[in-house]
Every structure is written in structure tokens, then in C-alpha cells.
């Protein structure tokens, strides 16, 4: 069983889901033979991945293995050069309309939060619903307060991001994504920039999100979170998916040499 490491928290500290997490039949994301290059560097090699609705997938791997690039391709923050990506039935091509449609359906939480520093917390949450979805201001604010309560910081609504702690900022970032009512949430190392005591508050919110049935792709090294919540763990190295399995099997019975090596280094 995984034990704690310096920059993550022990598994028994993670809140475990209180209800059974289920996976739907419907396909949410389909990646077929996806390749991507950064200049000469072949960063994603023949990625094939099908994600069903309600799946919670944790992606791990050494740095530079392409895991962030993979999830960033799903909302087209990175453009893939070969292969097909279909999100919620919409294929990602150069069509800007499609890209904006997919982006408003797919939320992403970044390692560095990327809150808008010139807007208050409440404005951070309402700016996209008001200007992208044309929701009325009062309605958007009401919804935003609901999500702030869900991430347990309604009292910070009037503050600016610069006045909050890292953990609070990341929870605001999660709430900001949720305000667009996304059907899929991507997490790009959401706890890597946080102090250990703040990691738990962010992970708790993510567990709660999993309980609500959200489809989640999480790039993280929090193996405790993976065992508690994920139904599949994917290991990537050198731009390839090396191995994927349900968490218990993945951690206790890794098949591939590189997976074993990686696990022995981080656990």
C-alpha cells in the first residue's frame, strides 16, 4: 500500500467517498491514434484512450512523459497533429466554433491556479457564465455562491485572489470551472504547487466532485487520491501509455518494468 511521501499526504488522511462511485456506459472522450510533436520532439505517441461518462482516471508518470500535454489536448489548449479526438460527440478540428463549444463543456484546473488577479473571487466565477453563456448577472452570482459554498469558502467572495492562500485559490479555480456546468473536468497537477496542509482541502473537494458523478481526468502524484477515488490509473512514459489498470492492481501488481521502477521511486 502506498505510504506518504514528502510532497503528498498519507492515504488515510484522504476523505474516502461515502457512496459507491459508478461508471456509465456512454463514451465521454475518445482518443484514437493521437500523435503530437513540439517542434522535433515527439511528445505524444499513438495515444488510444476511451473515457466513459463518470469515469475517474488518474494519470501518472515521470515529468516530461506527456501526461499534461495529453489532457491539454482534450480541450485543445494543445493542438494534436495526427489522430482523432472526440469529446462529447464533437470532434476537435480547426473549427473554432467546435473548440469553443468543447471548452465550455470541459473544465480544467491548472497547477498554478490561473485565477484572474484583477477580478474578485465572485467575478472570477461569474465572468464566463455572464459573457460566454449569457446568463443574467444575478443568476450567475447566485450559482457562483452555491459553488463557493460547495468548496467551503463563501466568505471569500469579495476578496481578490492575491489575498487568498494557495489552497483557497485552487478551490476557487475548481469552483470557477464548475460554474460553467462542465460535463468533464481535467486536473493538471492541481496540488503540486500547494503546501502539504493545503493539499487535503483541495483533494476533499475533488473527492466530493467524484461523488457527484463527474467525469474526471486527473494528472497527479497523489497516489492516496488514486486509490480512494480513481477507477483507472494510467501510467505514461516517453509519450506513451505504458500501462493502465484499476488502482489496487496497478499499485500491487504492476506489469511493466518501467511502472515498477516509477512506483518504487515515488512510493
Amino acid at each position, binding site marked *: 500500500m502506498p505510504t506518504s511521501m514528502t510532497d503528498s499526504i498519507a492515504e488515510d488522511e484522504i476523505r474516502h467517498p461515502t457512496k459507491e462511485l459508478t461508471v456509465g456506459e456512454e463514451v465521454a472522450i475518445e482518443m484514437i491514434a493521437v500523435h503530437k510533436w513540439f517542434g522535433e520532439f515527439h511528445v505524444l505517441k499513438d495515444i488510444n484512450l476511451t473515457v466513459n461518462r463518470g469515469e475517474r482516471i488518474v494519470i501518472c508518470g515521470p515529468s516530461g512523459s506527456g501526461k499534461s500535454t495529453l489532457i491539454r489536448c482534450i480541450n485543445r*489548449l494543445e493542438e494534436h497533429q495526427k489522430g482523432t479526438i472526440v469529446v462529447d460527440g464533437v470532434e476537435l478540428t480547426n473549427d*473554432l466554433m467546435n473548440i469553443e463549444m468543447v471548452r*465550455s463543456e470541459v473544465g480544467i484546473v*491548472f497547477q*498554478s491556479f490561473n485565477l484572474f488577479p*484583477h477580478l474578485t473571487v465572485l467575478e472570477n466565477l461569474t465572468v464566463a457564465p455572464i*459573457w460566454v453563456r449569457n446568463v443574467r448577472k444575478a443568476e450567475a452570482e447566485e450559482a457562483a455562491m452555491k459553488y463557493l459554498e460547495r468548496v467551503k469558502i463563501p466568505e471569500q467572495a469579495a476578496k481578490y485572489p492575491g489575498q487568498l492562500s494557495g489552497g483557497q485559490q485552487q478551490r476557487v479555480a475548481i469552483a470557477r470551472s464548475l460554474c460553467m456546468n462542465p460535463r468533464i473536468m481535467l486536473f493538471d497537477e492541481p496540488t503540486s504547487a500547494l503546501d502539504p496542509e493545503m493539499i487535503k482541502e483541495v483533494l476533499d473537494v475533488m473527492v466530493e466532485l467524484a461523488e457527484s458523478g463527474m467525469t474526471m481526468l486527473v494528472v497527479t502524484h497523489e497516489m492516496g487520491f488514486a486509490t480512494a477515488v480513481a477507477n483507472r490509473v494510467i501510467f505514461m512514459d516517453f509519450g506513451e501509455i505504458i500501462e493502465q489498470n484499476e488502482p489496487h492492481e496497478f499499485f500491487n501488481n504492476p506489469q511493466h518494468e518501467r511502472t515498477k521502477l516509477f512506483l518504487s521511486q515515488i512510493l
Partner: protein
Amino acid sequence: MADSAQTYETGKHPELPPPRTEVGVLGWIKHNLLSSPLNAVMTFLAILFLWFLIPPLFEWIVLDAVWTADSRKECWDKMEVPEGAACWAFITGRFRLFIYGFYPEASRWRVNLSFVLLLLAIVPVLYDKMPGRKFGLWYAMAFPFITGWLLVGGFGLTPVDTDQFGGIMLTLVIGVTGITFSLPIGILLALGRRSKMPVLRILCIMFIEFIRGVPLIALLFIASSMLNFFLPPGTVFDLLIRVLIMVTLFASAYIAEVVRGGLQGIPKGQHEAADSLGMTYVKAQLLIILPQALKISIPGIVNTFIGLFKDTTLVLIIGMLDPLGIGRASLADAVWSGLSREVYLFVALFFFICCFSMSRYSLYLERKLHTGH
């Protein structure tokens, strides 16, 4: 008084007041004026310098100055020592000329009205807490056109030729027009220069680099003389309009580079966050990127505006009479010649008041928009 030597149990240490010499007036004096022996000497020398400089200057400018007279001779006769003080009579006697230029007497109320309209337009732009600010901003956008129309004699008024514009009024016309139009044009140029579309990007780069590479005076000469070669024969294209266009384009190239600097200061993550929420390019720029980029650019933008405002004096080279031009023309008057100090001080004071206000406003704006903490 808390005894500094007193010891407390661990975890029970109370919050003590800071030493008296560290806060308040004493603290300020200690930290700012006497922080080191060298600093104390410098403070003493500065006080000494001001002691010898200020009183005579004040006497020359205010106490001994003559405010009413009909000629330089009369002015100097009124003084204890001839030429020993300022002769402001020269300025007060020509005050209206300095303000209105050669704008016809009977129509000068239009200039006064324009000035009031200008103040009304500035308020909603500068103060965001004003009630009904939205309408104020719409008005501010319409202001340059309304006033321009008013000054040249639209609305059925007697037409006034723009070569009768002069003095402070001319400075304000050029300065305000340049400032209001160069900011939006500059922002568009900056966005264009960062565009992914090569044709647009190259056009913007060429424009910016050409304008920045040519002195404003050269552009003004081009405006006053060469432009006629490029226009169809017989076209009458007002000289003031040409000057306004040149000054605006000149400032917009500088604004573009200042704003581009601001845009480069915005982390990539802000673009990604805006994109990931489904915002279009225009919405992302207007709501997320530009508000932050412009905030960073405030010192540079105001710097450019101040430069533009002072550069308006260059129009005297192509024969337009701004306050400096009027001053120089007045000095040619034999009755008054020899009072150049007064004239240039007066013109300097006018520009200083305008530019210093802009500078203070930019500091206020920076403080107000600071959300970092």
C-alpha cells in the same frame, strides 16, 4: 510601560508597542532625514540650499512683481530696481490672447463652453464611482466630435477657420484629440503586432517602426507641405486636421509599444484560463488580458501622453500659434521686448500644471487598481 528586559513564559509573550523612536513623526525624521551621518549632512545642505533659493525667488516672482502696466518701461519704472522683479503685466495684458489665440471675440463663448464640456467628459472617465457613469462614458466618446463641430462652427453657428485657433485652446485641441484617439489605435496596433496572422502582423510592425523612426517635426512638415502632392488636386484638407492625424498616429505608435510590453507581462496561464472557459479571442482580450495589460502599462501610457502634450508646441514650426508661439510672437512687440523670462516661465507653468496633474492621476490610478497584496 512594558519592561524590555522582562521575560515571558513560552507561548505567553504579549504584543508590545514598537519603540517610540520607530513610529510617528520622530520615526519618520529618524528614518528619512537622519538615518546616517552622511544623510544628516545632506539634509542640512538641502535645507541651506532651499533657505537661500526660495526667498529671493519668491520676491522676484510674487512680492516685487508688477501686475499692471502698459509697457515694459512703465513696468520697470514701478520697480525699486529696474529688471529686479517679474513684470507680469505683459502676461495679464495678453492673457486672453494666450488662451484663445485669434479666435473671434464674439465667438469665444464657444471655447469656454468647450472647456466646460471637456471637464464634464473627463469626470466619468477618471472617477468610476460616479452615478450614471455609463452615460457619462458614452458622452465622453462623443465629446471630441461635438466640440470639434462646435469650435469650427457647426450647429448653424458662424464658421471659424482653424487657422484662427491658437494659444492654450489649440494646445488642448491637439492634446485631447491625440490622447483620446491614440490609446484605442495604439491598443489595436499592439494586438495586431502580436497577431498570429502574418499579413496583419507585418503591416502593424511596418507602421509602428516607420512612425517611430521619423521625428514628429518631419511628420508635421509632411502634413503641412507634402500631403498635397498625394491628394487629388483641388482637395482642401484642413491643416489642423492633418496635424491632428499626424500627432495621433505618432502617439499611437508609441502607445502600441507600451501596451505590447504590458501584454507580454501577462502570463500564458491567463490566456489559457480564458480560452478554457470558452471565451472567444475578443472576449478574452477585453475581459481578461487587456484590463491587466493596461494596468501594467499605465506609467508608460501616461508617459507617452505627457510627451504628446508637450510635443504639441512643435506646431509653432509649421506656423500654428500655441502658447509658446504666441509668447514668441509677443516678444517681437517693441513695447514689450526683453521680457522673455516672464513669457517662458508662464508657458512652462501652464505645461507643468497639465503634465503634473496627469502624472499624479496615473499614480492614483495605479494605487486604486492594485489588487496584489
